């Protein structure tokens, strides 16, 4: 590195003391090479700044949700019940912020909190909800409202329209890809995993490859088909209607 480059490097790093800075300024008035180098350096910094993009809306909520799931899965039932009260208030804030249910945010929060209590505290004799199923159910309860008009019906039935983008969750050591669809005015959450979704206690049907089970969690219906790729569908419709609803969605 010659003396020009050494001074340039010091200037660009902000390492010049006042005397050095003064000598550098005087040098720049006479040295075309260094002046050009400074301009180029400044221009490249400005060009690189063009690459900045703000984080997409909803990413903070998604990250917070993922961390909350991880925290809920890390401890035993006693701690989980304690966190339930904190988590339900957080989820109530999320639900209110995302306008999940049309109506008062407080009502949405209360309903969400009640359903989360059923999920984690084993209310109504349902027993423990498997972590992966609980995560999908929680996501279905917290999914943002579509805020869009459904596509025009074809042959008397509306075509499914995807809402937002696929989201990857991890719960109970199981990686799950979740997508949300709007179908006949109903938001349907479809979760896909390379591992089977365990059947909750009290569900109808059978676990195992190629088998299907269904369950009810408050107003949320759950329908699962386990196989090479397992699919769990969650929507606020009777569980008996979920299989037909799932059949109208694009394949996973």
């Amino acid at each position: 590195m010659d003396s020009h480059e050494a001074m340039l490097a010091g200037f660009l790093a902000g390492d010049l003391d006042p005397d050095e800075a003064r000598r550098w300024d005087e040098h720049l008035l006479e040295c075309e090479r260094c002046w050009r180098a400074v301009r180029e350096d400044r221009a490249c910094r400005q060009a690189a700044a063009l690459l900045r993009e703000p984080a997409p809306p909803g990413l903070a909520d998604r990250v917070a949700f993922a961390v909350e799931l991880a925290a809920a899965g890390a401890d035993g039932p006693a701690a989980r019940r304690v966190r339930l009260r904190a988590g339900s208030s957080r989820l109530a804030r999320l639900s209110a912020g995302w306008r999940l249910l049309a109506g008062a945010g407080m009502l949405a929060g209360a309903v969400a909190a009640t359903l989360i209590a059923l999920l984690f505290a084993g209310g109504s004799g349902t027993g423990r909800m498997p972590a992966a199923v609980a995560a999908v159910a929680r996501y279905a309860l917290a999914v943002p409202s579509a805020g869009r008009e459904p596509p025009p019906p074809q042959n008397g039935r509306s075509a499914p329209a995807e809402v937002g983008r696929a989201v990857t969750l991890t719960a109970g050591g199981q990686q799950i890809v979740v997508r949300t669809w709007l179908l006949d005015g109903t938001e349907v959450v479809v979760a896909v995993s390379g591992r089977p979704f365990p059947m909750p206690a009290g569900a109808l049907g059978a676990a195992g490859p190629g088998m299907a089970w269904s369950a009810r969690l408050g107003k949320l219906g759950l329908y699962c088909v386990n196989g090479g790729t397992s699919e769990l569908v969650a929507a606020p419709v009777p569980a008996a209607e979920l299989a037909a609803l799932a059949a109208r969605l694009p394949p996973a």
Partner: protein
Amino acid sequence: MSAVGDDHRAFLDATLPYLDVVYQVARHAAGDGQEPEDLVQETYLRAYAAFGSFRGGSMRAWLAAICLNAARSQARRRRARPWEAVARPLPEGVSPARGAEGEAEPDVADVVIAGLDAQAVSRCLAQLPEPQRVCIVLMDVAGYTAREVAELLGCPRSTVLARVHRGRRRLAGLLAGAGVSYGQP
């Protein structure tokens, strides 16, 4: 409210303010087939798992280091290097500006901003060697200081500054070439 119920909230309170900066790193660290948002989520999950071992210093530098490691891990699983996977060829007809012997090279400062868009800058940046590209992304795109970059990369500050300086110089040539080609009527 129990201490257990507070730990993830304390983590999020401490780290979510840096989400935007982590996203800048993730956008350039994510390899082919890897969504930056997924990489950000993975970064925060890893950071949460390791939060107890954070010993102070720059939180945003710590998160950036986790993000880069997560990208490398995922790339290893995909058997591809993340930074090289980002590289794309320059558009046809664009080449680094090289003046003939004795001829002054085009002044990048005159051409680089006018007529160049983010996509062109990104393509030129992708042509840089990985060490220089990483440092420029961290300092000039994400806004880390040289000291923070040195901390998260585990190298001397002088090394970071040298990489940035050489990288910007090389980038200047690439941008000048792209600008001359784009700028021609």
